């Protein structure tokens, strides 16, 4: 089993997530770039991926929408700014609700050792304040928003 990921916050605008996989780099690369494969792993547990569009070329657009069990939809999108197969993918990311106040630049770098691949994801926000804003959402509050919507639906059903 691969080791659990490490997460660090170097500098005042970055979040860095490092994880190792028991697979060669070419395969991991495909899992990051083919929508039919991305669908099978990306997202929150129990959330359904309703949109997974990937125009995998520099300047190409990507868009993900995931839906909570309560019906709340969380969408994000951006452009691919650099693609160096099979080493590095750089892309911008903006949430529909602009939780991150100006989006972020995400870079995933892949290195391979003995048939194992290490993925290093660096998320860089536009300012320390933007990172703070991102930190305050959507992991913590997204779910809460979902539950609130569910509450509203339940209340409507009960009132009818």
């Amino acid at each position, binding site marked *: *089993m*691969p080791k*659990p*990921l490490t*997460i660090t*916050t170097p500098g*005042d605008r970055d*979040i860095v*997530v490092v*994880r190792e*996989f*028991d*697979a060669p780099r070419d*395969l*991991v690369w*495909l*899992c990051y770039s083919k929508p039919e*494969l991305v669908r*099978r*792993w*990306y*997202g*929150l*547990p129990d959330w359904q991926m309703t949109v997974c569009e990937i125009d995998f070329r520099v300047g190409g657009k990507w868009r993900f929408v995931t839906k909570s069990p309560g019906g709340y939809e969380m969408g994000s999108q951006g452009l691919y700014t650099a693609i160096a197969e099979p080493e590095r993918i750089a892309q911008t990311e903006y949430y529909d609700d602009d939780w991150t106040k100006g989006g972020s630049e995400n870079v995933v770098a892949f290195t391979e050792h003995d048939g194992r691949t290490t993925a290093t*994801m660096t998320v860089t926000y536009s300012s*320390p*304040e933007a*990172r*703070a*804003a991102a*930190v*305050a*959402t959507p*992991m*913590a*509050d997204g779910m809460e928003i979902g539950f609130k919507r569910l509450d509203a639906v339940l209340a409507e059903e009960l009132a009818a």
Partner: protein
Amino acid sequence: MQRQIGASGPLRHALTIARNKSETKNFTPALLTALAVRFITKSFYNTSVIQMTPSERLDATFIALSDPTRRAILARLRDGDATVNELAAPFDISQPAVSKHLKILERAGLVTRTNVGTSRPVTIEAGPMREAADWLEKYRDFWEKSYQRLDALLEILQTPLNTDKPAKTKKQRTDDDA
């Protein structure tokens, strides 16, 4: 009386109003203590993290932590309370500058300053830091769960196609039998 308990700001104001309103003889030490506690608590709540939403608290915490001087101040406070002068000593910055940093830390609830005496020692508070750590833990959980599914997917992708397997086993058995 005011000076003895170091009353300042809202407390002093409240005491003045109270004293003007009623007779001084009613102010027993116990009542004064109760009043002091109430107003210190109230003024602390008004200016602190208690009134913020969790989201705003995290904003305040991460903004407060995004400066090297403030991180150094917090590191120093882990060793125990300190006055502004003591905190300013290791830095090449003025005492007002340190006070400004302290205000930001205070707003995030990362430190508190007691209203006792003139030195007003600064104390580190663990609560908001824990909330920030909790968020990082959720972020970690999001990616760890996604990556665990990626592990499973990578394993499937690396497994030879099922259609080959039974055929091969069958063939081997036939060979062995023969």
